[in-house]
């Protein structure tokens, strides 16, 4: 196994152990009920019993952090799964069809990309209302464009190749060509983009929740925890510390994984 491949594997495992497992096992790992409020113990600093301290309503921060990991994981994976599917489909179709169809689809992508990312997400969530499902919808509505552009560019590179032309001349239908011949050959960069996409989605959801536009109140979203922490920054900085570090670690992990995957798939590609 190449060095780059090993690195990718190592990072993937690390993420799995450090983030995904705790997220999935939160109900068994969490020492307290994350929704248990206890006003008398509000803003208690870290100590035995509450290893990361308590927040403004007296809820245990460690437990909320673990449940928050589930939210981040779900939002990240759901957003990327939907964006990648939609975006790849559109991009492959555009690249294959060419001509006016391609132009139209790509201009639609351009219009969406003319909005700085968060702006459109904010507007969409304002329209759709609060709730994690709406956050996923809003982030997907933005995220698919990146996959579309990537997929189209990849398709343009693959189309002139011999085996695609051969399949066409043999009379294979467009869907078959796209699904069987084109798609498998462009998946590599899509996976790389997906890895970065998960990181981006987690960061975006946290940002929306920080602005008060994402998670409903009480949801232990890491972004919402940071927003709470900001209000009590002076008297209880410990509330802000843990969720921020968690976000950073998870985003870092997926970014590194994306890098490593990229290197593995195409070692000639220079590191950015």
């Amino acid at each position, binding site marked *: 196994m190449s060095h780059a491949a090993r690195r990718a594997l190592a990072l993937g495992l690390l993420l799995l152990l450090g983030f995904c497992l705790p997220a999935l096992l939160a109900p068994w790992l969490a020492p307290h009920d994350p929704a248990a409020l206890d006003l008398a113990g509000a803003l208690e600093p870290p100590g035995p019993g509450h290893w990361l301290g308590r927040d403004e309503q007296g809820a245990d921060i460690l437990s909320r952090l673990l449940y928050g990991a589930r939210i981040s994981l779900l939002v990240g994976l759901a957003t990327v799964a939907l964006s990648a599917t939609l975006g790849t489909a559109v991009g492959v179709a555009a690249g294959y069809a060419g001509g006016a169809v391609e132009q139209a689809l790509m201009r639609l992508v351009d219009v969406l990309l003319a909005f700085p990312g968060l702006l459109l997400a904010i507007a969409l969530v304002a329209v759709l209302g609060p709730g994690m499902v709406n956050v996923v919808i809003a982030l997907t509505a933005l995220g698919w464009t990146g996959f579309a552009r990537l997929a189209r560019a990849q398709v343009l590179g693959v189309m002139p190749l011999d085996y695609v032309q051969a399949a066409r001349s043999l009379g294979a239908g467009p869907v078959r060509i796209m699904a069987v011949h084109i798609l498998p050959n462009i998946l590599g960069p899509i996976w790389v983009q997906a890895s970065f996409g998960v990181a981006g989605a987690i960061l975006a959801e946290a940002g929306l929740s920080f602005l008060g536009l994402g998670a409903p109140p009480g949801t232990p979203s890491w972004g919402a925890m940071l927003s709470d922490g900001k209000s009590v920054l002076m008297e209880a900085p410990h509330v802000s510390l843990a969720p*921020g570090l968690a976000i950073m670690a998870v985003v870092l992990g997926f970014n590194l994984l994306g890098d490593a995957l990229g290197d593995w798939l195409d070692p000639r590609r220079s590191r950015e």
Partner: protein
Amino acid sequence: MRFLVNRIVWTLPILAGVLTLVFLLLHLVPGDPVDLMLGENAMAADRAEMRAQLGLDRPLGEQYLRYLGRTLQGDLGRSLRGGGPVRTLIAERLPATAELMLGAMVVGLGLALPLGVLAAVRRGTWVDSAAGGFAVLGVAMPNFWLGPLLILLFAIRLDWLPVNERGGLAHLVLPAVTLGTHLAALLSRMTRASLVAALGEDYIRAARAKGLGEARVVGVHALRNALIPVLTVIGLQVGALLSGAIITESIFDWPGLGSLLLDAIRARDYALVQGCVLVIALSYVLINLLTDLAYGWADPRIRRP
């Protein structure tokens, strides 16, 4: 040249698409601005009059066409609160956002260049690794975590800097650092890679052979050429800077376009939201255009697919 004309021609329809999208979004939202302005006590007659005055009683299609027509003439309408012209409100806030973004770019470059150069020149040593570590962390760090921590440390605990207001240069430091760190992290890696590539070029060997000092070789010859891709990346990152600015302005109470936009969304101030989004999108498209122009000028052989 054809490429540039192509880009300019496509800008207008894209902007029209942006306007349409924003118009549609806002009119599907629950929350009636007239109720908000007049309060519950308003009589039905008052409400109807205000609605007519603001043109909210016309069919959607008509409202849309009127909006398009006015916007193309430069009239962005009036704010639903207080009646001030949207153009003026935006113009008042634009300098603050511009200041913040330029500050962030200065911070970005100011941190990235030394780090990137050091990393490239001391390639493979611990310096390189440390710089790489900073780069990778900086990209992952959310600015809504960094900002409050900086406030806590520098404004509250140490009391070195003022905070949460626009004023002199000292007020700009924390917001600019918060917004610029992500950019710095990205740029430092670019700088390093670009400089490493430049240092491998023939003309560098020629310069060294001529007997020029290493500092001159790196700092003057290699760096100048390595910077072009770095500067173009800044152009590409403007979108991220604009998004980041919305959050940063919210953290620091910075009186810019981002906080104006968030406030307008909460109040369903239709015209103001549309105006803000238009101005932000327009700036973004124009800056991208300029970046592409610069790119095209620097390397006429490059054509975008």
